[in-house]
């Protein structure tokens, strides 16, 4: 198992791309029920959105409830690009798969950058503040974006924006989802991520330790917004139709409940939450009218009984990593290593829980 790290990562990346591409054929070839594949792809988009929101809400502890606004920025900017330039760009590049891949890549990039910039504009003033104000400012931002979109004739205003190239690509959707997961995972497990977590645990202490909290918060916020923008890009090209109404507060709330359900600060939790909240309503179609009532009740009950979410801060990857490390350390002591790993993970889990308990249970300042 001695292989340079980059080579191993490259191989993994290639395998993932290959598998996704293969699956794409399955889905395009109508081997799968279109309804089922639609739900699957919507789950993929939801994963991108949830994991990106978790970076700011779960790992940095800043409460943003305007995720739909950033999504909208990404969706509309990329849609505008695709409609105005995307097709011609693809044509110039030969019009084949490659041409479209480039055009879509460019659209994704544009959507992400635009949303990131919006995140910067919102984040710089509001993240300097402490407390709950970010929640209100992001909520207000979400409202303002909708107001603006309703008034921009170039993207259809209130009539909605149609004629966007439709790309129901399993490959594209899950590639972005996986990239988002990997980016967030790597951030969280880096020095940057530890700085973010320190801000979540105790902002004052973090500052005292020399962490430039505002800068880190803004960076995390911008990255999170950019990824939300990428999620918006996927959505824009999914049905080929956008309407400002789709990006109102309720959308932000749905993403929020995904990550809270899964556990603030757990990537696996966000993924599960995203899938659950996309699939569950389909399974319970008969109760559609009561869906939001059930969600809000669920949220309250969850906050009372288990404020850290279903998974809390546990990560599946963590256990996997620990096992790998144990394996490489001593091949011979595999059995004992396995045992200690188990204990370790149990310990870690309880410790994590205890930590989360203290952090969430801290008394109010003042």
């Amino acid at each position, binding site marked *: 198992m001695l292989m340079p790290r980059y080579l191993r990562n490259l191989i993994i990346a290639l395998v993932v791309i290959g598998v996704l591409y293969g699956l794409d054929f399955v889905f395009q070839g109508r081997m799968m029920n279109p309804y089922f594949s639609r739900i699957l792809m919507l789950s993929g988009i939801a994963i991108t959105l949830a994991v990106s929101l978790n970076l700011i809400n779960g790992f940095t502890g800043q409460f943003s409830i305007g995720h739909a606004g950033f999504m909208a920025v990404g969706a509309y900017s990329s849609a505008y690009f695709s409609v105005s330039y995307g097709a011609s760009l693809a044509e110039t590049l030969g019009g084949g798969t490659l041409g479209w891949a480039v055009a879509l890549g460019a659209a994704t990039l544009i959507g992400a950058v635009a949303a990131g910039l919006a995140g910067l504009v919102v984040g710089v003033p509001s993240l300097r503040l402490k407390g709950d104000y970010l929640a*209100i400012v992001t909520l207000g931002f979400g409202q303002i974006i909708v107001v603006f979109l309703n008034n921009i004739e170039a993207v259809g205003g209130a009539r909605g924006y149609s004629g966007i190239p439709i790309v129901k690509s399993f490959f594209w959707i899950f590639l972005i989802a996986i990239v988002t997961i990997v980016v967030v995972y790597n951030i969280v497990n880096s020095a940057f991520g530890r700085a973010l977590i320190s801000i979540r645990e105790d902002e004052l202490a973090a500052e005292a330790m020399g962490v430039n909290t505002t800068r880190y918060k803004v960076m995390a916020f911008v990255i999170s917004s950019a990824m939300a923008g990428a999620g918006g890009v996927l959505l824009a090209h999914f049905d080929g139709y956008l309407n400002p109404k789709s990006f109102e507060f309720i959308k932000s709330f749905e993403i929020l409940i995904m990550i809270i359900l899964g556990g603030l600060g757990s990537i696996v939790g966000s993924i599960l939450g995203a899938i659950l909240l996309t699939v569950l309503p389909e399974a319970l179609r008969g109760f559609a009218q009561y869906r939001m009532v059930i969600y809000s009740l669920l*949220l309250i009950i969850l*906050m009372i009984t288990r404020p850290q979410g279903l998974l809390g801060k546990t990560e599946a990857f963590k256990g996997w990593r620990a096992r790998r490390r144990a394996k490489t350390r001593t091949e011979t002591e595999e059995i004992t290593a396995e045992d200690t790993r188990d204990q370790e993970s149990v310990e870690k889990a309880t410790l994590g829980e205890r930590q989360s308990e203290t952090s969430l249970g801290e*008394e109010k300042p003042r």
Partner: protein
Amino acid sequence: MSTFLQQLINGVSLGAIYSLIALGYTMVYGVLKLINFAHGDVYMVGAFMGYYLANGLGVRGAQALGMSADGLLARGLLGSGAMEPSLITALAVMLLAMAICAALGVIIERFAYRPVRKYSRLTALITAIGVSLLLENGGQVVFGADPKFFPELFKKRNIELFGGASINSADIIVLVIALALMIGLQLVVFRTKTGRAMRAVSFNLQSAKLMGINTDRIIAFTFALGSALAAAAGVLVAIRIPRIDPLMGILVGLKAFVAAVLGGIGNIPGAMLGGLLIGVTETMVVGYLSPTYKDAVAFAILILILLFRPSGLLGSVSQEKV
């Protein structure tokens, strides 16, 4: 000039609504440091309670007079003479709605906020959002999603002023009641024993507990008072603008919150001032710039105030906070 005067009047009467809702917001925040997102929705419930109460009274009166419910619906329940619309009726409806919402506030506090009080403020905030959404969506199921039309509880008059401007009598009543409630609230907080306890809880929950204050009771009282204020606002606003629906509290609630922050959150006269300022600014933007960005005004103000004077206009002396 007369247009400007009229716009100013429009602004003040719109601002009075924001003030009225902001009062409850600011009080709960002052005591608990919790943005009670559900406040706007309690306001909505208050309006609906007023609606059902008024209709309940009206329908019974109508049946006594031998009129069909159908004919009433077309004509407006109280307006058709089933029950004499008067200030007394309005007051009775308002007080009953206030009582119901006070109970609702206590229930919300007991079953949603109290259990999470031991956790972080973030948990409390999420719970508040959950309660808010529960009321909105539950409202859609229970009251129905379609807007309802609030009966005219008392005859509204248009009062002509100098220079061609005019003001509706309902606007004056809203403004006067908002002022009265502000003064009353100020008296409760600063002149009564309970008020002193509220201030103590606000200052430090733990110490207050050590001093023998029943903090749970004080907090419950704060919620009851805040929710009653929201209900009063709901009924008054519904009298002035007679269309109510389960989602009516969202935007107004948010703007009222901004008003509370503008005035200095936790500061009672500040909420009044903030509400009026936001109402006038919004109206002026609509009247002289563009109505399109009306809803953006409040949030732009919020960002500016948070950047340059986070404690709000009147919130400089922290001891004055409730």
